[in-house]
């Protein structure tokens, strides 16, 4: 655990609101980016991150983070997305129902982009936990393999292997969209 993580945790346990605000400012952007990739909806991503911070504050006294505050927060985002997802599914069904009833369904975004976004979001959600956390630290914190390894107290080799695994899974899931890219490239050249 880094010194800063320790400072943050100590501050939290002492209910220090200033430290909490600092923590929020530090972590908000990458966490939001991560949430947004998963849910692809700004409002929902904001709500997810909001709930993560509120929950962090509420559980500040009993929180038990041994390795990395960062990793903990990314896991929290993941769980919050799942929680929001079940709610959103219900809402989506309801909206679909309404639009059928009223005939005036909202104009659809291009199907392919939408589908691609959904698949990326879902794939990230389905990555195994350690794989996902490492991926997130690399992707949203731009951390180097070495830093991630230090942060999570694992070996660089493990980080590398997990990253490769994440990429492999992503590529498999996105395979159907690749031909489109090929066409675009040919078109441009």
């Amino acid at each position, binding site marked *: 655990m880094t010194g800063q993580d320790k400072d943050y945790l100590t501050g939290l346990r002492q209910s220090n*609101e200033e430290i*909490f*605000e600092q923590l*929020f*400012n530090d972590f*908000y*952007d990458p966490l*939001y*980016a*991560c949430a*947004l*990739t998963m849910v692809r*909806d*700004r*409002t*929902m*991503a*904001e709500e997810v*991150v*909001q709930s993560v*911070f*509120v929950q962090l*504050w*509420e559980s500040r006294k009993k929180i038990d983070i041994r390795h990395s505050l960062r990793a903990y927060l990314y896991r929290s985002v993941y769980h919050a997305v799942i929680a929001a997802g079940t709610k959103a599914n219900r809402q989506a069904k309801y*909206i679909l129902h309404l639009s059928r009833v009223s005939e*005036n369904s*909202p*104009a659809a*975004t291009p199907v392919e982009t939408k589908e*691609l976004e959904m698949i*990326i979001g879902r*794939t*990230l959600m389905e990555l195994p936990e350690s794989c996902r956390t490492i991926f997130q630290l*690399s*992707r*949203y914190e731009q951390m*180097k*393999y070495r830093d991630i390894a230090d942060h999570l107290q694992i070996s660089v080799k493990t980080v*590398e*292997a997990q*990253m*490769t695994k994440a*990429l*492999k899974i*992503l*590529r498999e899931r*996105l395979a159907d*969209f*690749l031909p489109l*890219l*090929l066409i675009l*490239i040919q078109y441009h050249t």
Partner: protein
Amino acid sequence: MEDEIKKDSLLLSYLLGETDEAQCMEVEAWINATAENKKYFEDLSWVWQQAALPAGVPSNKAEVWQQVRSKIMQSHKTVRMRFFWSAAAVIFTVVCVTGIIMKLSRHQQRAEMVEADLPGTSFLPDGSVVTLNNNSTIFYPAVFRENERKVRLRGEGFFNIKHIKGRPFVIEVGDVQVKVLGTSFFIRSAARQTDITVKTGQVLVFHKRDSVLLDEGETVSVHPDDTLLLAKLVLEAKSKQLTELLRRSGKLALIEERMKTTDDRKILKDSLDKTLTSKIKLFPNTSQFRNLLNAVKKAGGDSIMINGLTLDSIVRKMMMNGEIEYQSAVDTSKLETRQQKDIVKNIIRDLVAKGVVSGFNEIVMFSLTDSELIVNNSIQKTALFEKLKLKYIPRHDYGIYYGNAEIKTTEGFHLTHTNL
């Protein structure tokens, strides 16, 4: 298989800048070895790019922090109530003092935000009324500013705004702004779309750089992904006439201009004027217009009768008489002389700016067509020609000529020195 993983791992490291120099060279050599390898790497980096956040997505960080804070404060409150009843007197005093200070410094006071998320009717500090739906929230200052009343909405709400001269009421919904000119209306914002329906009066809706004025009974839908407003017109009887017109002709902007017989023109123009001409002006560029058109088309509409004739038959008749033309862009062949002069002057200005000639009067002639640019009888460089062609030549077989030699133009126009 082992090799495959090793390869991916190395390529990914390369993408992330984790490789040392020797590895970099190894990877680059591999990528450039065959077209297949190259494609493999391109696919891989594409996948990697896709898994990133869409670039430049803004977020209301400050707003989220306010929400986090207000939630934390709530949980604080319950704790305090339980354990520090004795502090109630102190708090009361503080509240009183704060209240007095607030009142005293009402004019320069920084607005404290109030958050309301209970379904039902709320009264805002200015006497306006808002009715929220479930899962909706409104943020507003405890005291509105002197020159503007600003609130923020999430979800759905019906507003009945008290008109106060010189203090416009502005509602922010995501990146959409609704400026109210004393009226009642309904806002609904879902994940991907914000609808605003005006019941009485007028509102101005802003989104990025676009704005649209809504009258009674009209609705506008704003999509966050679009850089423009997508107007979904309310299909009341009056708008239906237009719907039908748009559906039949596909192009509206011109019809207005090209109608010649006064009777028919009047009928059509009246129906247009009343409904959409004002709105068309608000959607000057074609992609916006296309979107508008699609929205209207999608909404549909049954045939309408005007003076016993259906719009359909009016349009068809006018088409047969050559009174309506179907063209998407403004027809430049029928430009007024003044406009032609402006175009020629602009071209000459461009030529001077590019250093083709040293001054305005140096130009003896030029000819700009869709295939070449000739200035003072010499053919100009392709790069310059392409640039000017893009700027001035609207279509194939079109030409702009300047000079005293007589040129017969079929498409385009010719100006002599004396013309200019």
